[in-house]
């Protein structure tokens, strides 16, 4: 036990020993700048979306059985309205929600959508919950998740609102880029005869990933 605490202390001191403790990467960059930087914040928003596997999984779930462009547009817009609202409100009012809990709910959104795609709610309850409403509500939670990440970035107060709006525009651009990639892959896949056979398995795998996300984040909540 004593050895463990010594090792821990050493590890901690390594982290802290850095002179004037600079953060690196995106966070470090944001902490170095003040004022309005629209295009850099758009870039960061898009990057967040394209590299955020939890958002991508949910998006995949949403468009899995959508193939008409106008349907895709409706669902993606609902999701965008949802996450934009809570992202901007959350950062503006500094809602201090645990990112672990929010990310666990995002994992839950993946599980929910996978079960929805599998037709589980109709089979179990003989009832189909409103898919559009669910997309909007989970959009709210995804936005809260974005807000907690941005709060961790510690953006300067000067130029906060324009930078946030630019970040949000970037999130939408990133979402469209991710969506384009997903739709192209789905296009090839849907054309194969085995699509309907594999669709079931794919949604089960997606649900598994959602459960892993939930467990990962909840463990973080209790351990960290």
């Amino acid at each position, binding site marked *: 036990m004593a050895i463990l605490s010594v090792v821990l202390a050493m590890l901690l*001191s*390594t982290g802290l020993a850095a002179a*004037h403790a600079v953060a*690196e990467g995106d966070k470090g960059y944001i902490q*170095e700048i003040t004022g309005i930087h629209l295009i850099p914040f758009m870039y960061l928003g898009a990057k967040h979306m394209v590299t955020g596997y939890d958002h991508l999984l949910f998006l995949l779930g949403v468009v899995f059985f959508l193939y008409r462009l106008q349907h895709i547009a409706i669902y993606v817009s609902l999701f965008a309205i949802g996450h934009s609202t809570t992202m901007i409100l959350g950062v503006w009012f500094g809602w201090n929600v645990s990112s672990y809990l929010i990310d666990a709910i995002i994992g839950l959104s993946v599980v929910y959508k996978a079960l929805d795609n599998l037709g589980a709610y109709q089979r179990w309850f003989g009832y189909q919950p409103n898919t559009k409403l669910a997309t909007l509500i989970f959009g709210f939670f995804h936005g809260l998740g974005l807000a907690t990440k941005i709060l961790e970035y510690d953006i300067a107060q000067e130029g906060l609102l324009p930078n946030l709006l630019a970040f949000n525009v970037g999130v939408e651009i990133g979402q469209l880029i991710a969506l384009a*990639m997903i739709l192209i892959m789905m*296009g090839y896949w849907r054309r194969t005869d085995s699509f*309907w056979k594999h669709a079931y398995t794919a949604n089960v795998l997606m649900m598994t990933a959602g459960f892993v996300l939930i467990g990962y984040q909840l463990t973080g909540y209790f351990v960290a």
Partner: protein
Amino acid sequence: MYNSDTPTRAELPTSAQLLKSTAVAIFAAAAILVAIVLPSEYGIDPTGAGRLLRLTEMGEIKTQLAEEAEQDRIRDQPNVVPAFAPAPSPAKPLQGSGLLDRIYAEFLVGRAQAQETRSDEMSVTLAPGEGAEIKLVMVKGAQANFAWTANGAAVNFDTHGDGGGENISYEKGRGVADDEGVLEAAFDGNHGWFWRNRTDAPVTVTLKTNGAYSEIKRMM
């Protein structure tokens, strides 16, 4: 899978459409990579688009921060892993020298507490992107009055201290023109200021201090 209508074969994209989409995606990705991602992440900007969009600055700052963090890690290594540290004087056993240093430090510290206060004024000029650090050698609880100004410009700053394996950040700020107050050392060691010029012109920072410290030095 009840909440979906099975599309007919004719409703699905044709093979030609899909191939065209894939080609478009590859071209778009290449353009995004060269014009946006490489400038933003690494400061590599072959087309000049990144500079135009003010993204190259982000890549340059990230690269600079990564290099500085790496230098910090290298500098800190001897403290963390004494076995690999080059011994300052091989004749003396490492642990003993550490202990002696401590005793000397305590002794000097005792004298420092007794000494008169002093006052100084220092100026440093920072090129765009450059950082500088000035520290006061202080004992725990000692106080020093300070006032610094960026002489009409603005800098980022971090008022902090380190010593004896401890680190503290008293205050941080971005785009600040000046600051003044009383610095009280939280422990024995070096306490002072790190400034960085993130404007695109040179900035001169002038620091005035007076109080209970034994030495003022520019660290970087």
